[in-house]
């Protein structure tokens, strides 16, 4: 309440009057281009190639580089299989069609996200405490978490990201990279109907076995061609 009656109104009108004569902010876009902060990167969108296939290879480079972590990836593999998060060719992380589905707001048959269910995180917390919440001990933390739960639940990965300060793309990328880490409970691997998810080592072992078989075949006299990559 002002001491002089009506002063508030006068002040308010003065502001209005001042604004009235100030230059307007409406831009005559596109005649006059808008002034854009040099840091502005535009809207995030994944591009398609001439075959209509997404160009994104889901390599995580953008997610890892993004300073505010607005890009996130998760999911399955590059060759039309799902429920696979490891293996040599799976190091790209996610099957791109599925990444597109997610971005389009549709449901995605993605185990990593299906597994996003609340779990008892006290074991993760104990592991984090034990490892000093040190992001440099990420592999050790992931290994201990897998030992505790039998696999790496997404909720646990999120907690590890939060607890160590390592961004989620880094935690997820690391977990997908190493062949001994898995995202499904072993029971699911054994009882899965279709498609059958390979066991933890099989992706890697198959690649190595194919290579050694190729050498054996080259050395040995005229054996038949070993089976190529199983798709």
């Amino acid at each position, binding site marked *: 309440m002002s001491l002089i009656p009506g002063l508030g109104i006068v002040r308010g009108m003065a502001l209005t009057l001042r604004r009235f004569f100030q230059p307007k902010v409406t831009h005559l876009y596109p005649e006059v281009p808008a002034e854009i902060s040099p840091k502005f990167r535009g809207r995030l969108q994944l591009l398609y190639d001439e075959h209509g296939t997404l160009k994104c290879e889901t390599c995580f480079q953008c997610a890892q580089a993004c300073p505010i972590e607005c890009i996130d990836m998760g999911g399955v593999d590059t060759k039309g299989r799902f429920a696979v998060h490891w293996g040599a060719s799976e190091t790209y992380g996610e099957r791109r069609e599925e990444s597109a589905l997610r971005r389009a707001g549709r449901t995605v048959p993605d185990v990593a996200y299906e597994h996003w269910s609340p779990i008892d995180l006290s074991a993760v917390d104990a592991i984090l405490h034990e490892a000093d919440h040190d992001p440099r001990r990420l592999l050790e933390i992931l290994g201990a978490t897998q030992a505790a739960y039998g696999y790496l639940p997404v909720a646990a990965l999120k907690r590890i990201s939060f607890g160590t300060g390592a961004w989620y793309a880094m935690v997820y990328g690391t977990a997908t990279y190493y062949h001994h880490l898995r995202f499904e409970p072993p029971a699911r691997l054994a009882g899965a109907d279709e498609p059958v998810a390979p066991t933890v080592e099989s992706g890697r072992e198959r690649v190595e076995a194919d*290579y050694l078989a190729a050498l054996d075949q080259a050395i040995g006299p005229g054996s038949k061609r070993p089976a190529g990559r199983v798709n």
Partner: protein
Amino acid sequence: MTDLLKTPASWPRPLLGRASADDPTDLDAAVKAGAFAGLKKAVRTLAPAAVVAEIRAAGLRGRGGAGFLTADKWQAAASTLAGRRYVVANGYGADPAARTDPVLLERDPYAVIEGVAIAAWAIGADSAIIAVRATEAGAIRRLEAALGAAEEAGFIGANMLDSGRELTIDVRPVQGAYMLGEETVLLKALEGKRGQPEQRPPYPSERGLFGRPTVVQNVQTLALAAWILREGSAAFGAIGSPAAPGTILVHVRGARRAGIAEVPLGTPLRAILELVGAGGRSGLAFKAVLIGGPSGGILPAALLDTPYSFADLRDAGAHIGSGSIVATAAEADVLELAELLTRFCASEACGKTIPCRIGTRRIEEIASRINAGTPRPTDADLLTDLSADIVASGLCDHERLATLPMASVMRYFRPELDAKLQPAAEQAAGRQRVAVVDGEPAH
């Protein structure tokens, strides 16, 4: 356990000299046979810079594949300002067909430990890591036992040889893809991160583990460094070829025998292949030799006089790589072999860059359609262009080297390649109609 091949008595054995010990972890026996004499000499009589000078005089080059001058790495690490420095021994042994590094660790763990300690002394590192493939349980067990004994005896630990300097050495089992053997990838794994290579420079010797100067060295390189300090650089320089003296471990496979041998660098391929009974007067005939591992070059039998050395192999279109040498049967289909090798390399590529994740896959596709009898008329040119692009734009050496198997087929087995390209050539000439199977837009 992988066999050690018998080599001619005139070939010196700096690496496997103690390999026949009953118990390789018996420290007293090893010391009697010369272990830690080099370290004692370094710590008691030589300044760190003098150690680097001795390694330089010996002309030691890295045994991890590329043959980089070891002294250059040590000097760079020692002269980069930093609060801490690290030594990392690369015993990962990425190539499943070459067990040379694990076998060295199993047969003579003290040689590697001594080499690590010498490198740490030379660059001023107080902690070091020996990285071993997690599946090599035997090597890890022996290394751990040996480290315990060496620490108890005061060779390493809180007060290394009473010098007042500390050195802790850890064994770290690591597992991952083929790529994990590449030095920047290995460092990522040791930091607990996803294994993908980094741009070099800066080299690890300037910015390595946790951003600190780090000497990453193959375990054989380190074992040789220990030998050099014990026996002197002149003795080392007298072994092998003058440009790259010393010996190296190879894993040779032939139809009759396979195994690991220590060979002087510069030995002609012919002599190495005779170790497994391939070629020579009494040996089995063979068609080609795959040298360097999955990303190796396939050389024809006509090149058997090529010396096994970094520079000569590079000129011939192969590389020392993992130390793997494979003699193929006389009737082997080199083009199929090249396809399978390329497939391995493409599957093991890390996916970080476009030449890596797409380029290698495209080469694999070209190779596979040539072998399947459905080549396209442009395939030969495409292969040449694509390989050149990958070599020019690759981030790490893996994708560059992955072009070698197919490139060597183009270079040395052109008639066979042309025969398989024939349907496409005829079609291009309009003489014959051949259904070219158009693959789906490949992923």
